[in-house]
């Protein structure tokens, strides 16, 4: 028998050791998690220096000054309901590196790149931002509040393209 007592005993030793070591060496991060630092996302300035998390006021300001290029990472079905005026639709689920690279090459250097998705617990904006940074884009702003927060604030929206 493969799964005998010896297996379970040894597996328990290996799993137990992994848990103990894994938790001990990450105590600082566990503390940060308990403080709620990591509730929104794990991408930190340290791991992804190019990814900057921004909140609604900053996004609003960039929009008002016309200084932002907005990328909407939501899937087609959600995008169709409306988007931040002027936003380019770059659905994360189907984004591939070749077309992203072409897109990135067209970004004007004097504008700020802002990526957003539906808001709440959506991940595609972060994923897209990471892809862009991997492709060599120096700085990507991620608006975690996303579409939900934008719409709730009563800011202009665009529909029916």
């Amino acid at each position, binding site marked *: 028998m*493969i*799964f005998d007592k*010896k*297996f379970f005993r*040894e*597996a328990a*030793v*290996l*799993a137990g*050791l*992994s*848990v103990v*070591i*894994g*938790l001990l*060496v*990450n105590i600082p*991060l*566990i503390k940060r*998690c308990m403080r709620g630092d*990591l*509730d929104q*996302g*794990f*991408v*930190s300035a*340290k*791991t*992804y220096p190019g990814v900057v998390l921004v909140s609604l006021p900053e996004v609003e300001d960039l929009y008002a000054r016309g200084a932002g290029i907005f990328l909407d990472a939501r899937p087609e079905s959600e995008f169709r309901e409306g988007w931040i005026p002027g936003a380019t639709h770059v659905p*994360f*689920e*189907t*984004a*591939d590196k070749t077309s992203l690279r072409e897109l990135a090459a067209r970004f004007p250097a004097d504008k700020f790149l802002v990526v957003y998705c539906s808001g709440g*617990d959506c*991940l595609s904006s*972060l*994923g897209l931002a*990471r892809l862009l940074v991997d492709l060599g884009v120096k700085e990507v702003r991620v608006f975690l509040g996303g579409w939900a927060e934008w719409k709730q604030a009563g800011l202009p929206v665009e529909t029916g393209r």
Partner: protein
Amino acid sequence: MEAGGPAGGDGPMIRNKYILFAFRIIVGGLFIYAGILKIADPLGFAQDIKNYRLLPQTLCLFTAFILPWLEVLTGACLITGLFKKTSALLISGMLMFFIILVAITMIRGIDVECGCFGTFSRKADWGLIAEDLVMLVMALTVALTRPRKPAL
């Protein structure tokens, strides 16, 4: 029939032993490598797990703390021969889990970096499943080969 004849008996066994050892080095080495890369960047790995959209935030984080150590420990055990069968079985289990995970993710149409080797990761695709399958065959071979009975 005579057992343990010089030509027929030992030859294949020795070869088999070397192949098994090579399997242990390859799979164990890859697991140690993959584990260390993830240990170096727990938050990056947590995000990779989260991108698969299966686990809630906190669980992603704790998986990212613990799983890499399990990879390193089982990899090291596989190479050194301590808990050899158990570590080969655990590695097989992890590989099966990875294969199912990638397959499910592809079926759901989610396009993610696999997160397998830290920042050196690639897309989770069929090629990745194929690589995992090759490692799975190696690990299962080590796990299921019966130890040679001591010569009488």
